[in-house]
């Protein structure tokens, strides 16, 4: 990974979702993850961006989504923030429960948790911050620059 930290401020649009996914794919590749892990990280970021754009900011053109990628302590840390009402993770139904299996939504956070090593969701009155952490393969736990 050539950058230590990359930040984006994005509009509340569907294009933002694609941009976030593409940025995640590129940065995860640069960090040394294999193709399967890159796909998982990119999908987790995509799902978080969908939540921010749709459920958080509700496509409000006056609200922004911020996206930060940081390589720190042997981890790839990705933070997505919106300016919505705040997502309460405790109120999200379990999508694996029998009564929810045929629901057409509600799997985004589950997929994020499935694909990342650690996930922290911090709702507030001014928006939701979701922090996604993936341990970089072969890392000694210290901040290192990639060879490329």
């Amino acid at each position: 990974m050539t950058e230590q930290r990359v930040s984006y401020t994005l509009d509340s649009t569907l294009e933002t979702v694609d941009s976030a996914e593409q940025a995640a794919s590129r940065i995860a590749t640069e960090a040394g993850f294999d193709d399967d892990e890159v796909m998982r990280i990119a999908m987790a970021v995509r799902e978080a961006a969908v939540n921010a754009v749709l459920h958080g900011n509700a496509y409000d053109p006056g609200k922004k989504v911020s996206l930060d990628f940081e390589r720190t302590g042997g981890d790839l840390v990705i933070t997505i923030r919106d300016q919505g009402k705040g997502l309460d993770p405790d109120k999200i139904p379990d999508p694996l429960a029998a009564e929810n299996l045929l629901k057409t939504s509600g799997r985004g956070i589950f997929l994020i948790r499935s694909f990342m090593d650690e996930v922290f969701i911090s709702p507030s009155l001014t928006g939701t911050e979701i922090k996604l952490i993936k341990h970089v393969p072969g890392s000694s736990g210290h901040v290192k620059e990639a060879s490329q």
Partner: protein
Amino acid sequence: MSMKTSTRQVNGVTIVDCSGRITLGEGSVILKDVVRDLLSKGQKKVLLNLGDVNYIDSSGIGELVSAFTTVRNQGGELKLLNLTKKVHDLLQITKLYTVFDVKDDEAAAVKSFG
């Protein structure tokens, strides 16, 4: 790559060949429209060939579930054919692999419709 579909008939079964991405926005809308159009024509035996679908997100999964229940509620059947590993893995972790009737041989899949 956005999603593309084409349909063909084999022994009374409508096979929908899908390719590209089934994601929030265009891909999910296309799938919804295709299934709605088939049902409006009375074509209720639907086999979704996902062999060239290389990516699906939670919205796409939701649209697959919606298609499945919509067809079933109208007395039809919707089955899946030729899952890529990525789509297979997603259906496994979401426990939907056991909900859908998933096939990997087209001829056998067509025969399996009642």
